[in-house]
């Protein structure tokens, strides 16, 4: 009986230890998968924010206006000069492609999968007559693993 008990306890203990050892490793691994997806979405969001900031520098000053939270969806979004329309290989406006399921299904799927949105917080500062500057907060939001994530970037747009 004694010997059995030892053997039994031994196995249980060993298993306990094994499970203990494996848990962090597995969690680490589990998180590594998520980390890759996270890095993918973060990198994508960084690109989106940068893209907006660059367009803003070429947007007529008066046309830079707030896009309040929760923001505008990028997939199926309106014609905003940032993302829609996105491309056009034709020589007229008729050929312009927007991020819709019909026209750019793959990209549309990706954007809808994570619900990528953008919003703009525009601060107008008038220093003097005709001397003004905008500070624009560019906010990209998306959903990932049940969490609402956010990436923000600020830029100054002077009225030159």
């Amino acid at each position, binding site marked *: 009986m004694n*010997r*059995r008990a*030892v*053997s039994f306890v*031994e*196995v249980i203990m*060993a*298993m306990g*230890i*094994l499970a203990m*050892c*494996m848990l962090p*490793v*597995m969690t*680490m*691994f589990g*998180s*590594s*998968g*998520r*980390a*890759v997806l*996270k*890095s*993918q979405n*973060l*990198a994508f969001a*960084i690109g989106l*924010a*940068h893209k907006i*900031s660059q367009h803003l*520098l070429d947007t007529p000053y008066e046309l830079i206006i707030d896009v309040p939270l929760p923001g505008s969806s990028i997939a199926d979004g309106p014609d905003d000069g940032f993302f829609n329309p996105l491309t056009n290989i034709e020589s007229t406006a008729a050929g312009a492609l927007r991020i819709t399921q019909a026209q750019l299904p793959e990209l549309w799927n990706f954007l809808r999968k994570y619900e990528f949105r953008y919003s703009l917080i525009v601060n107008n500062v008038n*220093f*003097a*007559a*005709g*001397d003004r*500057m905008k*500070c624009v*907060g560019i906010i990209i939001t998306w959903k990932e693993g049940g969490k609402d994530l956010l990436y*923000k*970037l*600020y*830029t*100054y*747009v*002077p009225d*030159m």
Partner: protein
Amino acid sequence: MATNERKGIALFLVLGLTAVFVPVLLYLSQTGSSQVRLAMKYHEVHQSESAAIAGVNSGLSRLRGNMTGLQQFTNLLIGEIAYDLTIQPTGTGILTQELYHLFSKCTKGQHTFILMSDAEQMYPDPDPPVTVIPHDTWNTIEPYDINLAADVTSMENLRGQDVLSYEETTNYEKSVSKAAYASELMSKRKRLPTELQGDWANVVAILEKEKLAF
């Protein structure tokens, strides 16, 4: 002997599972963290670049606000990103405008991004806004210190070389006729990669149309 058999079973279960799982898990858990690091680096790169651009704009805004002379700022913030700004007078232009070198630097993590720009502040001007004309903005990712004359000088030299080669190019453009300019460019078509040959004629047409005259 019986106990050994049982121990054998126990040992088999433990070692077997360990031997199978641990290497597998270690092998599988490589990618994630490094990827996040790379994404963060990319974020730093972009943030520093964006902050540097914002810095240039804030510098131009100061000049428009009729602020003159040497201006040095450290730890200015755009969002949560700190950037440094140096506006260094370089003399007076032929239109009696004030000439400046405008430096904007952002260091995020290991990454540095510096923008250097020429700025002409129209002067005298009764009150703001003063007209400011920036040009020849140049960037570097070398970790120069824009508050130190030595670093500033070396940046000015590096950028100067590029500006000189630009002047050479523009001088050439101005010096030749449109036809000669176009034919010179068209003559390169055969030596271009096939991907570019298709639309090269259109490209040359645009270049010809927009050739600098004087």
